[in-house]
């Protein structure tokens, strides 16, 4: 016998859709909102349904947007010569928070993964390449796909496709994390850091 009414059971189940949330945490969340903060619960429900209704993807960069063009693509103060390609909107957000980049983006919403059936079409590459070819504003494409096998394969695939467009293509460097000690670094990262070492000037 379940001690909760059907609607509460359903709410608990729904919280379990979230990553990292099991039945215990889901129950705690549901009871927290229902029992102690119904007003907050209402706000949560409203903002979720509004967002689901309004948000779709930017036509240019595939970032989340309520309009045809997202906030970033409509910002004309950015450097239009730079285009950064990322796997997900979370990666875009991380790049933005780094504060070191002021160009535009393209969100792949995934990475090339032959075994899983994700190909160039699913990543919007046809759209991207025809944009780059027709507009000719971008001078440098920065490949910021993850440093995983699939991210790396995606980067190689893109470089190859862009060769013909005469663009400068760069890739984020792999290296020693800030504040870390070599002794504890994994061998792979250390090898990459050595490969990508740069001239150190006084």
């Amino acid at each position, binding site marked *: 016998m379940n001690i909760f009414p059907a609607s509460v059971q359903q709410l608990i189940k729904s919280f379990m859709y979230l*990553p*990292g*949330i*099991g039945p215990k945490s889901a129950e705690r969340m549901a009871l927290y909102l229902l029992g102690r903060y119904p007003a907050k619960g209402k706000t949560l429900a409203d903002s979720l349904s509004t967002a689901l209704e309004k948000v779709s993807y930017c036509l240019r960069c595939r970032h989340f947007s309520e309009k045809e063009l997202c906030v970033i693509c409509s910002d004309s103060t950015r450097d239009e010569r730079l285009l950064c390609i990322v796997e997900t909107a979370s990666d875009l957000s991380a790049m933005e928070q780094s504060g070191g980049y002021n160009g535009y983006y393209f969100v792949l919403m995934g990475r*090339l993964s*032959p*075994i*899983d*059936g994700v*190909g*160039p079409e699913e990543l919007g590459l046809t759209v991207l390449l025809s944009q780059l070819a027709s507009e000719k504003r971008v001078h440098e494409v920065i490949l910021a796909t993850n440093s*995983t*096998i699939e991210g*790396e*394969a995606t980067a*190689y*695939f893109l470089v*190859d496709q862009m060769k013909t467009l005469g663009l400068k293509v760069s890739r984020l460097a792999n290296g020693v994390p800030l504040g870390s000690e070599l002794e504890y670094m*994994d*061998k*792979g*990262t250390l*090898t*990459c850091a050595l490969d990508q070492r740069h001239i150190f000037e006084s």
Partner: protein
Amino acid sequence: MDTLAWILHVRPFKDQCLLIDLLTQSSGKITGVAYRKKKSNAALLQPFNQLYIHWQGEKYLKTLKKIEIMMPFFLKKQYLLAGLYLNELLVKVLSHTDAMPEIWTHYEQLMHHLSNQLSFNAHLRLFEKKLLAILGYALPLTHEAKSNTPIQPNAHYYFTANEGFYRINHATETKKIIPGWLLLQYHEDNITLNIEPILKYINQTAMMPLLGYKPLNSSLFFSNKTLFIE
């Protein structure tokens, strides 16, 4: 069980876990589960790494208890794409069966090859040929299908999967024409650059029944490239 293993493919599984296809030295292909959250696992659990693993479980899905890296392989450019092709092939054609020491050895050789950025097309074709033989689909390169007549160097043949090579008697036949000398040369494992594209055609046709008549995705993805697949 302790064994050496190559990672073939990794995908997210439930919230906290990764589902990993491995080629192991002791037990052929296995599928195991590992925790994703452990930070040390992120760099280890990538395709092309050779690992030392300890796993538990009798059934289809094993639990990976201990994972240590033996040898990281860094594949780049077309060598990386070739590696992905190889892994997709193994994930799709191998069932969870016993150890296949030959496959293990050849895979290891190919990995060395790819990480050293050596030309690999001929080696890929030989790997496919060995794989076909091990899986019971050996190419009958010395004798004709049905009639069992020896292949003649100067005659021409066409290939049908599951059956073999048939002699072409009329010039009008539309099938891909394969000269007899090429088959005999392939039988000797002697792969030269000029015959490699035809061998690719033969291997791919022969593998179709094993792949459920669906070409590998990696060959579709890279098909517009000149790198390694037509």
